[in-house]
């Protein structure tokens, strides 16, 4: 147990060096790709750097709170998030979809809060129960996941809804719900999939059709996938070099600073660069897994594991989408894509991991 100042700044600020180091590395990669993807716009890069600073501030701030306190606040954050989601459904803004909420000068997506609030609340809910949870508890936890998930699907924002629900379901998975139950849920999903197909919005259906055969609609929805694939494939082993990607600079690639920034990266840095990037992500992921394994209470363990693997899902969904393995669902590449909301969310998640790591009561050195 540690009380008061230790004299070590990293320890006093509850900073976990590998996590912060990995995040800094990824942010640096992000800014350099963004400089290229934005056609050498220092303005865009500066803006993103400012958001990163905000993200780091949020990450360090959240790390100061002990997991116990986080657990206590979880249901409150969840309740606030739900109120905002309902408000968005009523007075929200956005092109063709109600995703944004405007509060004075602030404009944000309440669904973003849920990316953290849902797993936190499910973890808090299960933390004082005997695990693996009884069926009634599982049902209650599923409700905690499904209600905000439903609201976000209705916005409609399928990508975010999947991520929010995945984060919550991961908590259940790590809480040890039986494989039979998991198998049953998967089976039900398979059976219900055709029904889902008919309740989908046209644009969502189109994305799936386009994924299966991009050439069917080369000027419309398939254009993203075709151009992204050309960018990735023409990158080759070592890439065309920084600032030399033709696909991105000749404006063939849409969304090249945001959701499709990975395509710019692949084009300019090649497979070699991708392996380096994956290694940087793995550094953060493995450190996160270590933190989860070392965590000393149920809540910390569940939330840590859920956050780490949700982060991985972000990475995989984005990369899978850019390389044409998954449908285009609008998920940014963590810490690299241009945009503030998801960046701050991910940094805050990393802050929770740091809090778990640095607030352990019994530090056992192996």
């Amino acid at each position, binding site marked *: 147990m540690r009380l008061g100042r230790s004299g070590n700044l990293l320890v006093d600020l509850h900073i976990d060096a590998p996590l912060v180091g990995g995040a800094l590395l990824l942010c640096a990669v992000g800014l350099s790709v963004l400089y290229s993807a934005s056609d050498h716009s220092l303005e865009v890069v500066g803006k993103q750097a400012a958001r990163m600073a905000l993200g780091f501030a949020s990450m360090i701030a959240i790390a100061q709170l002990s997991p116990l306190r986080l657990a206590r606040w979880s249901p409150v954050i969840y309740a606030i998030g739900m109120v905002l989601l309902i408000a968005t459904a009523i007075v929200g803004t956005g092109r063709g979809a109600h995703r944004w909420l405007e509060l004075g000068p602030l404009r944000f997506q309440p669904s973003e809060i849920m990316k953290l609030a849902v797993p936190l609340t499910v973890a808090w809910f299960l933390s004082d129960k005997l*695990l693996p949870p009884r069926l009634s508890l599982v049902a209650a936890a599923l409700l905690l996941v499904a209600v905000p998930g439903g609201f976000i699907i209705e916005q409609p924002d399928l990508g975010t809804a999947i991520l929010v629900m995945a984060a919550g379901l991961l908590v259940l998975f790590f809480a*040890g719900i039986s494989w039979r139950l998991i198998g049953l849920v998967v089976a039900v999903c398979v059976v219900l999939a055709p029904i889902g197909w008919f309740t989908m919005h046209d644009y969502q259906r189109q994305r799936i059709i386009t994924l299966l055969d991009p050439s069917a609609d080369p000027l419309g929805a398939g254009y993203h996938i075709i151009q992204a694939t*050309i960018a*990735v*494939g023409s*990158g080759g082993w070592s890439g065309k070099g920084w600032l*030399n990607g033709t696909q991105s600079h000749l404006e063939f690639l849409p969304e090249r600073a945001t959701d499709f920034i990975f395509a710019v990266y692949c084009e300019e840095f090649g497979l070699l660069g991708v*392996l380096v990037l994956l290694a940087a992500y793995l550094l953060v992921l493995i450190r996160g*897994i270590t933190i989860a394994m070392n965590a000393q209470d149920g809540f910390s363990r569940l939330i840590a594991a859920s956050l780490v*693997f949700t982060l991985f899902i972000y990475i995989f969904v984005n990369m899978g989408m850019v390389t044409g393995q998954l449908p285009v669902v609008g998920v940014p590449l963590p810490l690299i894509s241009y945009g503030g909301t998801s960046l701050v969310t991910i940094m805050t998640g990393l802050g929770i991991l740091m809090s778990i790591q640095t607030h352990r009561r019994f530090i056992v050195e192996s």
Partner: protein
Amino acid sequence: MNFGPRMKGQSRETQLFTRRVIVASVGMLVLIGMLIARLVYLQLLSHDHYTTLSLENRLRVLPIAPTRGLVYSRDGVLLADNRTSFMLEVVPEKVEDLEQAIGRLRQFITLDDDQLARFRAELKQRRRFDTIPLKNNLTEQEVAVFSVNRQHFPGFNIAGRLSRYYPLGSQTAALVGYVGRINEEELKRIDPAAYAGTTHIGKEGIEKSYEDVLHGTAGYQQVEVNAEGRVLRVVERSPPIPGRDLHLSLDTRLQAAAIDSLQGRTGAIVALEPATGAVLAFVSNPSFDPNEFVNGISARLYQSLRDSPERPLFNRALQGLYPPGSTVKPMMAAGGIETGLRQAGDRTYCPGFYRLPKVSHKYRCWQKAGHGSVDLVRSLAESCDVYYYDLAKDLGIDRMHALLTDFGLGVKTGIDLPGELTGLVPSREWKQRTRKQPWYPGETLVNGIGQGFMLTTPLQLAYAASVIANRGQKLSPRVVATIEDPAAGTRLAIEPHHLGAVAITKPEAWTAIVNGMHEVVQGARGTARATAVGATYQYAGKTGTAQLFGIKQNATLKNEDIAKHLRDHALFIAFAPLEQPRLALGIIVENGESGSKAAAPIARTLFDTWFRLEGVLDAPG
């Protein structure tokens, strides 16, 4: 407290958790493996293929919009033109200090804050070497002043661009219509490839109905761009095919005479050539300047046009619905003879009113004192209502419906203009369907003199006049006479569209009603005899008055007592000459009170004008 089972539980939980983390980690590694496999496939195995594709992507296809076809009148006047409008453009990288240059520029060219804000917004989005518009629609003076000072403004340039212009403006707006910027709804409808580079599309009139002919085919140029996107050279060019020109049957001189003859009154005039269906004049008054709509009308002007009580944007000739009044009487009379219910010489006694058996209600003739004993010709010449009440009662609504529909009332004429309205000739079935009521005998009488439910457009009235002029031959009204392809040097004449003949087979029916209509204008007691004085040709007409205001039984009202907007509409249909007619007219003067006083003189003016233009009449000395 006993920690025993809880501790045990915890260690079991830890084990379970550890196993789950291991499973998840393995899953993660498998997925990463899949990603890497996919990247190896794309970046190593298919690298050459995608490199080729990416090189091909250096070729860019830029659309070239075709030039829109022109529109001419029959007498060779240009009705829709493409005029060069000038805009000031800037290439930012060629300007040293943009803000300072714009400041200096404002000495010569007025730039408001809106224009500057739009320019700055675009400046941020576009690249330094792109051309960005600063101001549209420069005045000639601005172009001149800038040209003189051009050397002080490197990077600034004046570019010309074609913009649609209607030289006759409001005179032909009802017919030619106008083009406007393509809106979102139209964007969904049009073929994006055909309209790549095109900014405007026909919105009204023949600009809309002949959009396919006028638009032309887009051209393309394939250009090579360097790694920065700069155009290096044009690889291939496929020029656009300009739209084809239209030659209308409209005569601008007759059109101008028609507009003048209305003397600013609200109304509509349609002039047709009976033998072909050609539209010679097409007036809806008041009108509007279509040029205001081409590049976006200002909200204030649009509002004032829309809210004006005279409704200048409303195309009365095509969409105005008016009770036809007594103009239906010739058609009724023809039906009477065809069915054998009347002979031309049969007489009906008019005491000034008509009564159905066992009904006290009096159906009044406009002539309170009564016409006495009238035959068919006199019933038309003096427009006796009682004659037609009686005829309507004998015909019945079913036969009347078939008859009037046959003459083109209550059906679309099929003119080559968009938005034509159908009008209404009532029937039992119609009344049951819309009002859930049976047909009453009294309604037959009222509709027999063109009142009641009946509604017709001025175009339908002109069409009916031309059908009578043709002794039953029906030719669909046509605005466009010829489509000319200036590139190929070919002309395609649009053949008259023959719609068959009215089912009036007895020649004496036509003779009788033409005689009657001739008496209207050139008989001793005709309702419009005053207007034909001095005419050197023979013509036929029929006056009509469309009541807007129900007058109670036994009440008398003078027109001065009725507010102007409630006064009756004045109607007149006419054709001339009697044999081989060359002009048929449908005329409506809103609130003109009397067909003979307000509408009939217009017909005389237009016949005189047209025959003089055709050289049949000498110009007045």
